[in-house]
């Protein structure tokens, strides 16, 4: 009995939570001539939108790849080597995870401007190539697995590069999946820095383009706007539905222990 009560309360809560989402989808589908995908087609063909999409995709791909390689290197160093001042260095890594990034918003903007990188793919990727949270995840994961394989390879005369990328790397698959998911989501949804660091339509990413669409001079055209919002979220939602268990597990379980 108690069990069904729980189930019903949960269902009601979730229906309430889904209500605004359902409304968004309804608005995006309801055109002057019934339910159809006209708004979606309009948005997609409206010029900048497909460009936003490609920009988001390209930037996310580069940033995820960079994080997988560079954070593995750093995480491996912090987990397996005695480093002079290593504790302090790792503390620096941790502190960047927690600090509000807004502190560097203005100076980073000035810096990028002076370097002539404003409004380029460099500005959208370089600062985000090594997310300290990923270093933390990889280091913690490595501390939990024995060094036997690495030692064996070292005795066989393998070089450090070989050990890292041929021996350690394959063992990291579970944590690298979490790294990839976390980085993709953060980057795909990132607004503030891409918004500040770009200024031409051709360099905008999806969230920035969407926000600007809503700030347009005309009164808000909800149908098109919601179609754009749904389109921009579609790739991550589809990926989420496919890898649901791993994503939820990866982003909730590892955090609190």
């Amino acid at each position, binding site marked *: 009995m108690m069990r069904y009560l729980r189930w019903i309360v949960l269902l009601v809560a979730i229906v309430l939570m889904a209500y605004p989402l359902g409304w968004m989808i309804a608005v995006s589908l309801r055109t002057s001539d019934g339910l159809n995908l006209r708004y979606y087609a309009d948005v997609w063909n409206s010029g900048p939108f497909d460009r936003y999409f490609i920009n988001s995709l390209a930037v996310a791909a580069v940033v995820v790849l960079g994080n997988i390689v560079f954070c593995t290197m750093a995480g491996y160093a912090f987990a397996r080597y005695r480093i002079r001042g290593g504790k302090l260095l790792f503390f620096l890594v941790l502190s960047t995870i927690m600090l509000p990034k807004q502190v560097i918003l203005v100076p*980073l903007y000035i810096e990028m401007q002076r370097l002539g990188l404003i409004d380029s793919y460099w500005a959208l990727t370089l600062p985000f190539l090594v997310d300290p949270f990923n270093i933390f995840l990889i280091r913690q994961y490595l501390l*939990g697995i024995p060094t036997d394989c690495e030692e064996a390879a070292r005795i066989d005369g393998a070089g450090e590069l070989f050990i890292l990328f041929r021996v350690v790397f394959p063992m990291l698959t579970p944590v690298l999946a979490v790294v990839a998911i976390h980085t993709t989501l953060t980057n795909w949804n990132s607004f503030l820095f891409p918004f500040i660091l770009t200024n031409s339509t051709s360099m905008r990413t999806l969230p920035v383009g969407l926000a600007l669409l809503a700030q347009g001079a005309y009164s808000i055209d909800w149908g098109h706007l919601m179609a754009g919002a749904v389109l921009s979220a579609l790739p991550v939602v589809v990926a989420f539905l496919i890898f649901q268990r791993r994503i939820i597990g990866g982003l909730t379980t590892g955090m609190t222990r």
Partner: protein
Amino acid sequence: MSRRRRVSPVVWLLLPWALVYGAFFVFPFLFSFVLGFLHYNPLNVANTTFVGAGNVTRLFGDADFHSALRNTLFFVIGTVPVTTTLALGLAWLLHAPLPMKDAFKAAMFLPSILSVVVIALLFKLFYAPGGALNETLRALGLQTHGWLTDPATALPAIMAMDIWAAVGYYALVLYAAFTSIPESLYEAATLEGAGHWATFRHVTLPMLKPALGFVLVINTIRSFQVFVEVLVMTQGGPLGSTNTLVMMLYDTAFRRLDYGYSSVIAYAVFILSGVFSVFALRRMRSQTPVQQRGMPA
């Protein structure tokens, strides 16, 4: 036989991180500190002047800052406890053998994979004159309201949205903690004759304490930085009623082009959420690798 001294692998392993961290975090971070002592207008860099602590004294006397601070604190105090309590309730409900559990979990997690921009737009529509909330009120024969245009309701409306967007994620974090409580503790409690409430109070809650601490700290730090929602939905208005610290920082820097003063505001945000970061850092450092085995496979 001469052997060249080899560079320790640590150097090249840490090099990419050190370069990115140095160039795009440490440098701007220090630069921000310097900026705080200057009057710096990007359109008139030649006229940059050193104002010493001038920007700081200005901050303390600035009525806009006071209201931004009040709004931000109101936002944090009004959302974090509510989100945590609701998340705890949802996690508790979920922690039982239930049909369709995976679908429930997916639905609860969904808002956290959406961009804040998408969520903010979605709720701008939700609160709009012809939006879901007002249409529902109208259908029920109730008074409609300009939720985002009335200074009394704009900030609470954004807070309600934040709770909506955050509660599912924290519920699942707490749910993961629920599932890690050993069944034997509950069996012991039952043997001792403990009732539902006593079990929750003396077994569940103490075991959840680390996870609850994590949720509270992370959510507090995040809430101090509330900005994108405000920018998309109200731009700080109406009448400054939704002006938060980071909204003010953005406004000062990129609309009024007063870079020096904006850096001081940035440091205020930094110090406020920094206090909470210290707690969080302590926890992360004390994590042992064995405990980390809970990582998903």
